[in-house]
């Protein structure tokens, strides 16, 4: 091993050493105050020694901190404040000691040591906080108290991947979700920022990280491929890793010239990347673009009301352990009718999924269902609901999944729900809706997938026969 830089090495001790002055000086102040009372008067001789040790360790912290700060991996603004407040703390600590030990010579007011002690406490707290912000990032202290908008993973909705801008629609969201926590405005590990074109092109401590057209020379890609246990692997161990698709996309983007403004369609695409790109397209995915459980929390339904439903045999289950939204199903009680549905009205704010499949309900029950305005999924299949009932469901503006399989509802009846903008899938198999209605429905619900069902499989020879002999 070659000794490269002793001063950098000493700097690395700063995070350990800083805790000495914090502890010792706090103890000193405590002893100082306690020793005022006669009960603890015998502590007086200790105060001097403790304050001296505190002041010395504060100075050592300052020196090591200065050396560490030269490395420059930190936000310069916060670093600057931390540096000077830290030095201020050390100065006050020295003055405090000198004053306490009566080494200042002149006659000073008796209250001065106490003023200094309070000042010192404030400075220690402030310096410590700034230091914490430097190592853990901004907002670390309060992140459990407040929800932070910025660190939330972003997901771009891409209707047509070929029309998307390669960098801002595809690459940047990946960088944002997986890299920005250490390489953007709040932190610059290895002096690298990845949040703008200029910063990415500038590179980090060891030079350029991106060589357009050459992914194997681009550190920003090569680091992803290293063994996850290796120190240089990015993102570091314990942080969310890039998925294989994300890695492939970065590889493709760099090799395609690492353009910051071109659209996907203008970039070369080989057979391998096409499916990966296509998978980014939102309409290729059956998943609702909106979650089927509202994001805003709701107050818990009263246990008494839920108990009442359960007693009637109705299945009531929260959609998840931490949510108060409810999923309700009549699956165990197919003979229940409209009166049981009425019980649901009192749980209107909480019910988001409702299954009334194969029950004896009639259109009259829809007056109660219409009050459940948070519903996102509603199954009315195999019931006697007609157009009259459907017309009452207009208030269900959040509805995404609507199942009317095996009902008498007609195409015209369904158009009453034209105003339900969130509808994503409607299942109309064996309903009163005719083939001829399809263009009408497509016009009424341009965003929804309408599953007509009635799939048939042709009879193939293999369905009924078996192979008995080898045919060569």
């Amino acid at each position, binding site marked *: 091993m070659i000794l490269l830089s002793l001063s950098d090495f000493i700097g690395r001790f700063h995070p350990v050493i800083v805790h000495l002055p914090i502890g010792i000086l706090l103890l000193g102040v405590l002893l100082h105050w306690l020793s005022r009372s006669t009960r603890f008067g015998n502590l007086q001789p200790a105060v001097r020694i403790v304050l001296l040790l505190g002041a010395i360790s504060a100075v050592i912290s300052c020196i090591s901190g200065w050396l560490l700060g030269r490395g420059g991996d930190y936000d310069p603004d916060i670093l600057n404040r931390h540096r000077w407040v830290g030095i201020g703390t050390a100065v006050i600590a020295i003055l405090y000691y000198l004053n306490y030990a009566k080494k200042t010579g002149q006659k000073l007011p008796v209250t001065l040591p106490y003023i200094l002690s309070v000042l010192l406490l404030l400075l220690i707290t402030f310096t410590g906080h700034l230091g914490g912000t430097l190592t853990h990032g901004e907002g670390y202290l309060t992140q459990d108290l407040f929800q932070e908008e910025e660190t939330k993973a972003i997901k771009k909705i891409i209707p047509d991947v070929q029309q998307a801008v390669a960098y801002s629609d595809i690459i940047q969201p990946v960088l944002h979700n997986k890299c920005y926590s250490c390489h953007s405005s709040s932190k610059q590990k290895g002096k690298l920022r990845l949040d703008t074109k200029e910063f990415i092109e500038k590179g980090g401590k060891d030079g350029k990280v991106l060589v357009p057209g050459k992914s194997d020379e681009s550190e920003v890609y090569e680091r992803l491929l290293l063994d996850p246990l290796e120190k240089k692997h990015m993102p570091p161990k314990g942080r969310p890793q890039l998925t*294989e698709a994300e890695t492939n996309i970065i590889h493709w983007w760099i090799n395609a010239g690492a353009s910051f403004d071109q659209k996907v369609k203008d970039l070369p695409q080989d057979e391998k990347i096409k499916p990966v790109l296509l998978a980014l397209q939102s309409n290729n995915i059956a998943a609702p673009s909106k979650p089927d459980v509202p994001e805003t929390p709701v107050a818990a339904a009263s246990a008494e009301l839920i108990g009442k439903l359960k007693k009637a045999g109705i299945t009531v289950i929260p959609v998840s*352990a931490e949510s108060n939204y409810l999923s309700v199903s009549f699956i165990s009680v197919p003979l229940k009718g409209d009166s049981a549905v009425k019980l649901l009205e009192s749980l209107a704010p909480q019910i988001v999924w409702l299954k009334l499949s194969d029950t004896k309900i009639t259109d009259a029950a829809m007056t109660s269902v219409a009050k459940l305005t948070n519903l996102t999924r509603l199954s009315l299949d195999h019931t006697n609901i007609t157009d009259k009932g459907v017309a009452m469901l207009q208030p269900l503006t959040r509805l995404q999944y609507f199942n009317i399989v095996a009902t008498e509802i007609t195409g015209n009846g369904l158009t009453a729900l034209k105003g339900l903008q969130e509808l994503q899938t409607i299942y109309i198999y064996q309903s009163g809706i005719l083939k001829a209605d399809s263009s009408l429905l497509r016009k009424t619900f341009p965003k929804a997938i309408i599953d007509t069902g009635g799939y048939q499989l042709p009879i193939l020879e293999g369905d009924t026969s078996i192979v008995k002999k080898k045919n060569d």
Partner: protein
Amino acid sequence: MTKKELNNHRLFSEANHEALHFVTRRHFLKDSVTGLGAMALGSLLAGCDWLGSKDKSAIVFDSANPLAGKPPLFPGRAKSVIYLHMAGAPSQLELFDYKPDLIKLDGQDCPQSLLEGKRFAFIRGVPKMLGPYAHFAQRGQSGAWISEHLPHLTTVVDELSFLKAVKTDQFNHAPAQLLMHTGSARLGRPSIGAWASYGLGTENSNLPAFVVLTSGGRNPDAGKSVWGSGFLPSVYQGVQCRSEGDPVLFINNPEGISNDMRKASIDAINEVNQRSYKEFKDPEILSRISQYEMAYKMQMSVPEAMDISDEPAYIHEMYGTHPGKESFANNALLARKLVEKGVRYVQLFDWGWDSHGTSAGDSLEISFVNKCRSVDRATTALLLDLKQRGLLDETLVVWGGEFGRTPMQENREGKVQAYKGRDHHAEAFTIWMAGGGIKKGTSYGETDPVGYSAISGQVSPYDIQSTILNQLGFNHETFTYEFQGRNFKLTDVYGRVINEIIA
């Protein structure tokens, strides 16, 4: 009491008395003090979050109502799972993993690099490579390669997500099946279905949460342990139903016993049980009472749910079902009915995919083609039927075997075999999933040009289990059951949710 018993009794009480002489007042005081201290410490520790063991979201086992519906950790994309297990392990090289290079190598000696340090179940020495015994074509918008053996399934490939590089570490049927379904190649762990019913309970209080249906004339090699409850309470094990005759043995009342009489006798038994509960307060008694009641309810509803004869003719035509016969098609239709009725986990096993090529009965040319024919139509019908009923959206369908098959012709005992056949192969095989929040028309993972091992996107049985749990709304790392002093997980310390195929 005979004289001898009386003597024994006397001897025993005398010995007891003698023993008590050795217990002094000091013993009593000492035990009292340490005991009190321990009790106090226990309550103190219980008060704090001791090593974080008190998980807020931990599932509470309510012995009085063990199958009550419970919420998952987060809203799940799938409410039910249908797992179609082709027991014996179908050949991926004849179905989904198209390897044109293997055609060219057909009949040539297997290169040493593929054999060194490897063990096979039957292959000995240097086997010959075996080209795919199937024609392949790209189908659907997704352009998935799929062979002519599954002509119906080709029409729905755009609904499926293929995992083409699944790797297991077991090359014998029983341990590989156990690994696939219980997360351990050894006996004693609960199956995924048991975990699912433990975590979610049942939506329909009249039906079991976890139903198993078998076809192909044999149960899977690993026996009933593949749907066992392991160390979970036994109420969570899979209920095996028969697809011919009574679905559950002895489900009908014996002759001369009416339903009312059955109800009256169960009420009487429960009354006695209630009394003993009042006396002893043992929660297991409550569990017994609830199980009697559940059994009575199921007696009513299971025969109805398990009866496919009332399905319309076009549905029978679609699946290719023949009521009253044991077949995969009947089971597939039953699976749809059960999921419709709120059953959480339906496990199908179809035996007979073990194509070694030792005889016509296990050859790629004959029996394998017939197996494909027996499942192709029904599997496709199941997917389409679920879809048109709006159920595929919330039902996860998984299709696969316990391992794959070698790119080499099997040469059992070093002999040349009369039929084409492949040996067990753990390194790479294909599994597909559909519905339940899985991406449509995608493929993940890739094998080398001969389909021997994965070159990218390799996944393990644990990853598949993690993904199934994830779709049901559980995190495989926090979904635990405390047993023998530690929290057990389905996937042990392994498993990664395959996000690449999740929509």
